[in-house]
């Protein structure tokens, strides 16, 4: 159990700056997720904390004690590797016992057995203990790798994309199992993933990493509802958020947004919202990017009031629901629809944007400006961490 603090960590591999000034303060017992696209530097951060990689600058401390010069063995961290890194010549049992049989963390064989049995029960792999890693499926290997970490009582659990190599279904069910175990971890955990659902579901807090830098840190809800820029907004959510360039015009006492759909101008009144209108006035906004999540776009197959016409680009199922993509010229709009509709490609569709759920971004810097119901959302999404 430890509070992990990283201060201004920098690391380069050759000419590539893998980490470019990373500072993190991870609380004791927190489940902290590092989330970002491939090659963002997430694994490097983990390796620095484990002591496998030496940062060129900056300090890493556990409970205030600087660990930079301590070797991995003495840091008392338990790590789950992306490729599992099981010892191929050892049985599952011996793999799990490995740390507890080392000189540093030695325990009695009886204690080892007890802990392994407990972890095996938790991971539902009691029957696998005598097998060799080569006799396991990917899902089972993943469990063993997790089990090998769970038998320990480390300062911190480091998990590097433990579910990445599983297929979609298994990944989702393993994520649920992980969520179930989370309460029993009893230590700080740093979890690396590129899957936003894992990040949202598991993380007490999430740090978005891109190109070796931290983009945003916050709770899942905070990042989902108030992404600090369009990059973050696009990472969170599947199908991706729609970003629509629009021009603000004055309309009576309020404002409206004008966007181009297939070459012609479409005007929408902006629903009234104190925060949004104040922001528009204060910044004198003329151009904005509107971010609207796919579930907040309505559609109809006949003309209706407040709907504009466009054509269907595609209609496809994404499991329990489907996505209609509509062609709008310079951009496409994705929206959620039920399965089993009879939608023909290139047929007409009528669309209405629920602007009162939208997020406003600056079209030049792509940064977050404001959103509808900002105060209400802040009140439940932004959690102060003590």
């Amino acid at each position, binding site marked *: 159990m430890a509070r992990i603090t990283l201060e201004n960590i920098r690391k380069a591999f050759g000419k590539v700056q893998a980490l470019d000034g990373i500072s993190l303060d991870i609380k004791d017992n927190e489940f902290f997720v590092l989330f970002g696209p491939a090659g963002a530097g997430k694994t490097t951060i983990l390796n620095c904390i484990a002591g496998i990689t030496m940062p060129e600058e900056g300090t890493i401390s556990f409970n205030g004690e600087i660990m930079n010069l301590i070797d991995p*063995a003495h840091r008392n*961290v338990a790590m789950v590797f992306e490729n599992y*890194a099981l*010892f191929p010549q050892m049985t599952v049992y011996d793999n799990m016992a*490995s740390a507890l049989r080392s*000189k540093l963390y030695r325990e009695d064989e009886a204690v080892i057995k007890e802990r392994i049995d407990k972890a095996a029960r938790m991971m539902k792999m009691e029957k696998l203990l005598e097998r060799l890693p*080569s006799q396991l499926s990917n899902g089972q290997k993943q469990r063993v790798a997790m089990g090998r970490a769970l038998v320990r009582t480390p300062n911190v659990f480091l998990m590097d994309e433990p579910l990445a190599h599983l297929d979609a279904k298994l990944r989702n069910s393993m994520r649920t199992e992980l969520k179930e175990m989370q309460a029993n971890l009893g230590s700080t955990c740093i979890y690396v993933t590129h899957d936003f659902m894992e990040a949202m579901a598991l993380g007490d807090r999430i740090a978005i990493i891109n190109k070796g830098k931290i983009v945003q840190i916050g709770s899942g809800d905070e990042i989902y509802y108030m992404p600090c820029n369009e990059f973050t907004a696009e990472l969170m959510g599947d199908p991706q958020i729609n970003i629509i360039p629009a021009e603000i015009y004055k309309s009576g006492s309020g404002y409206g947004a004008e966007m181009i759909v297939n070459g012609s101008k479409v005007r929408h009144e902006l629903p009234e919202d104190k925060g949004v209108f104040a922001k528009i006035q204060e910044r004198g906004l003329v151009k904005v990017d509107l971010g609207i999540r796919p579930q907040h776009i309505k559609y109809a197959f006949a003309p209706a009031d407040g709907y504009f016409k466009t054509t269907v680009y595609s209609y496809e199922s994404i499991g329990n629901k489907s996505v209609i993509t509509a062609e709008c010229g310079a951009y496409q709009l994705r929206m959620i629809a039920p399965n089993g509709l009879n939608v023909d490609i290139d047929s007409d569709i009528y669309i209405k944007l629920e602007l009162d759920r939208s997020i406003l971004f600056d079209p030049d810097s792509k940064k977050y400006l404001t959103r509808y119901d900002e105060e209400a959302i802040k009140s439940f999404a932004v959690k102060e961490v003590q």
Partner: protein
Amino acid sequence: MKTGKQRALNVLMNVLLIIYAIFALFPLLWMLLISFKSDTEVFTTTFIFHPTLANYQQVLLRSDYARYIRDSLIVSGGAVLVSIIVGVPAAYALARYNFARKEELAFQILSYKFAPEILVVLPLFMIYQKLGLYDSYIGLIWVYQLISLPLLIWVVRGYFEDISVEIEYAAQVDGYTWYQIFFKMLVPLIKPGLVSSALLAFIFAWNSFTFPLILASSKVYPVTVAITKYLGTDSAHYGQLAVAATVSAIPAMVFALCIQKHLVRGLSFGAVKG
């Protein structure tokens, strides 16, 4: 109909394999036959002759043959041992660390095998005489590294490269020191490659002829060179020659048979499969 065609194909394949086997094994069989013949029968008969053990008695009991075998064992075994002690860490370094000119160095090690032995042996002869290594065990063991070391390093390096570096990290995080990791985790994983390449290196060293012929004379007498003794200047004792050759081939054949399964698997790389 289909099965009939397949059966015919199978028969044909087996016939061809048998023909090949006869072709490949015939020289060995011939050698074995000669070793049981008396000198007079060597050229006169093929399969029908009066088998005699005289040649064996002559070679094994009345000459220094045991000493030659012992010398071969010492130099070949010593060469392999040195190769393992030097080669395994070298292979690890080549597999794991990045340093300037790494690939060039690796290639240079391999290139020792390119030069024909006869090309390098004469300068070596002169150098050895100056250094006092001529006709010594150490000298031969040293020069045999040209044969055994490149083979061992290249095979074992492949094995190390196949072990994901995360396995080492995992063991480090589990609280093991580098030496413990090396001997507990890595050595078992490279064992198939290490054993097969070491045995192959042993066989190559055992069969080496040019180096011991030129770089050794009376004190060190490996069996390959010793065989030539039975070819006198005036007379050739083909029977004894055949005995010496047969017996000297035994260790190599025994090894090859023992390890053939591992040899194919071990040399085709791949420690951590599945």
